[in-house]
């Protein structure tokens, strides 16, 4: 069965930390159309929060003039694809950045678990990054039937 796009939203916001909760609520609210379980919704909120926080802290290094772009696609087979993109500094070594407990911000008490959480709370995680151009995180979550 070929999956068909059921619905899509695209939105963007300034890279301000106050928008982290807005982003996870907006994505979760859109995804409720597929009637996910509370646990699935909680997973989505957490994964989105991690990706958006990374964009704000690491992508734009706390400079709030940047913009974070989010696309959410809902498919007929109950899969969801969430793309979170920044036009920030980029990640020099993605593999290293994705290592659990690796952090470039040891004083910020962030713990280096962001990518591990995104990976474990979704079914598929792809990270693309170019130095000076930005980072795109694509997460796929397949909802239970």
């Amino acid at each position: 069965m070929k999956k068909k796009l059921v619905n899509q939203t695209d939105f963007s916001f300034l890279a301000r930390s106050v928008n982290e909760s807005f982003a996870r609520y907006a994505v979760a609210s859109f995804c409720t159309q597929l009637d996910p379980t509370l646990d699935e919704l909680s997973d989505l909120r957490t994964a989105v929060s991690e990706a958006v926080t990374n964009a704000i802290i690491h992508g734009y290094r706390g400079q709030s003039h940047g913009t974070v772009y989010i696309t959410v696609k809902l498919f007929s087979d109950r899969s969801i694809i969430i793309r979170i993109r920044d036009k920030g500094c980029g990640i020099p070594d993605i593999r290293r950045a994705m290592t659990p407990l690796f952090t470039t911000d040891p004083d910020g008490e962030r713990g280096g678990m962001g990518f591990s959480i995104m990976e474990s709370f979704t079914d598929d995680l792809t990270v693309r990054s170019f130095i000076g151009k930005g980072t795109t995180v694509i997460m796929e979550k397949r909802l239970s039937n």
Partner: protein
Amino acid sequence: MNVLTAIYNYSDGILTVKLNGEIDHHSVRDIRVEIDRQICFYRAREVLLDLEAVSFMDSSGLGLILGRYTRVKENGGTLKVQNPGAAAQRVLRLAGTDKIIPVVFNRDEHNS
């Protein structure tokens, strides 16, 4: 939306910090300073971080917990996490934090 507050209760040498709301990178910044100030004020040797009323927690919560744990331990004290919800427990387990920091379930006592 996204307001994180803390209620402090100090009795019998135990400082209970009851967090209420959502823990993310934005909300955690001010509360972290406030918790440290209270730990310092009471010279608390035993700290209970109560997460029962926390409705959301991402890895910023891990940072908050580990940071306070390290601080309290450096002063010879102990820190425990109390009553985390299912989502918070998952994040704690994923990071292996639950192997280092004791998690207790005590829904009747220590609530202020």
